[in-house]
């Protein structure tokens, strides 16, 4: 019997791809846009692209915030992807200050268009970037969604805003964009977030999803 995972459908983005990728990774995928479906889920994925405020509104309109908190309090595996990861934070400054789900402490800020040496680079940050642990000595990736991949793996990023965690321990992986550090993966126990799209990062991305399904 395949492991069940519920993908939250809140009117945002390309659900088809994440569902396909999860199925490919061996999961039994359900979609839910209702509190009951979310509360009963074994595993939960929050996808998302676009603006933070639109995402939070999508959740609010469907009354999903409490259900998500209920789920997370049960200590079951949760994965936020791209905007979904950003929504896990306390708040975002995109188009004004907006409250997030507060699953991991921190804020969402604009990715700077200026590199560390003063040169301009393109925004959105689009493309494949190598991802590393913040500390080269000890990856800290055991027992996380990154346990089966190696430092330097590449993920497909597409974003103009990024999360910054208050506690360093919650940042599992980073990538470098023109000398600026971007948070690539966050985690607190079974709750994880990926700024890049594992469903768009080829076989490595699928491996990360498989690992999530086995947590």
């Amino acid at each position, binding site marked *: 019997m395949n492991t069940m995972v519920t993908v939250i459908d809140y009117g945002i*983005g*390309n*659900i*088809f*791809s994440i569902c*396909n*990728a999860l199925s*490919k990774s061996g999961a039994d995928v359900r979609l839910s846009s209702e509190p009951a479906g979310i509360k009963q889920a074994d595993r939960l994925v929050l996808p998302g*692209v*676009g*603006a933070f405020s639109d995402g939070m509104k999508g959740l609010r309109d469907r009354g999903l915030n409490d259900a998500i908190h209920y789920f997370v309090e049960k200590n079951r595996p949760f994965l936020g992807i791209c905007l979904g990861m950003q929504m896990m934070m306390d708040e975002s400054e995109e188009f004004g200050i907006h409250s997030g789900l507060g699953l991991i402490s921190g804020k969402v800020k604009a990715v700077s*268009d200026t590199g560390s040496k003063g040169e*301009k*680079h*393109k*925004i*959105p*940050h*689009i*493309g*494949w*970037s*190598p991802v590393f642990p913040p500390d080269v000595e000890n990856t800290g990736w055991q027992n996380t969604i990154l346990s089966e991949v*190696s*430092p*330097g*793996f*590449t993920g*497909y*990023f*597409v*974003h*103009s805003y990024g999360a910054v965690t208050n506690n360093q321990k919650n940042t599992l992986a980073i990538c*470098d*964009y*023109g000398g600026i550090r971007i948070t690539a993966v966050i985690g607190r126990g079974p709750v994880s977030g990926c700024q890049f*799209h594992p*469903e*768009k*990062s*080829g*076989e*490595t*991305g*699928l*491996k990360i999803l498989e690992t999530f399904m086995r947590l």
Partner: protein
Amino acid sequence: MAFTRIIARLDIKGPNVIKGVQFEGSRVVGKPSELSMKYYHDGIDEIIYMDTVASLYGRNGLHQLVSNAAREIFIPLTVGGGVRSCEDVQALLNAGADKVAVNTAAVKRPELITEISRRFGSQCMVLSIEAKKRREGGWEALTDNGREHSGLDAIEWAKRGQELGAGEIMITSVDRDGTKKGFDLELVKTVSAAVSVPVIASGGMGGLNDLADIMMKAGADAVAIASVLHFGDFSLKDIRNHAISSGLNIRPFDYVQGLEEKS
């Protein structure tokens, strides 16, 4: 820095992938699902599907092909050709597309760019510009798959596209497309300098060194290639290995395991 992306561009006519020269003619080169699967397993960074007969039917007709691709291919998929409204975009995203490329409809109604980027996010909205050299200098933006003149200056249009909310600009040289004579470096360099969103260069790749030129001399953030791949002139492995040994900032790819190599 993000690696410069190598994107496979598949021009689709009905059930086939075709390739024209300077946007004229169409030679059948294969089936979309076979070619895109091959490129995915060979390490392509992204795929673009362009519906070349969308104007005949008044809409983009690639939904089934897009869904088929999205089931097996786990890299970004951009779809263009006949995208005219937010409803068209929604339908394509529902089918599995990640981004849409819009040209003709945006030229006719520029507000469409803002509508799409506001509703779906600018990362989803690629402004596709088909640029043809003007005798008196500069480039004009063409529409309808290279068939109609818009009177717009391609560079000014790129800038305006960014202001309106486009997340990427795909700039295709009509003069070079399908010729394998190399990219129009001046065109790409000028667009790249004019906008601060990523620029995808398209049209003209012929030799392995063209990639170095377009990246180092023109500053492209991504390169869309078609003829050299579809006609089998080079494998992606050849292209990637040559690029990496030339010191270009390209994603490494482990061909044995089909996984990214550790960098």
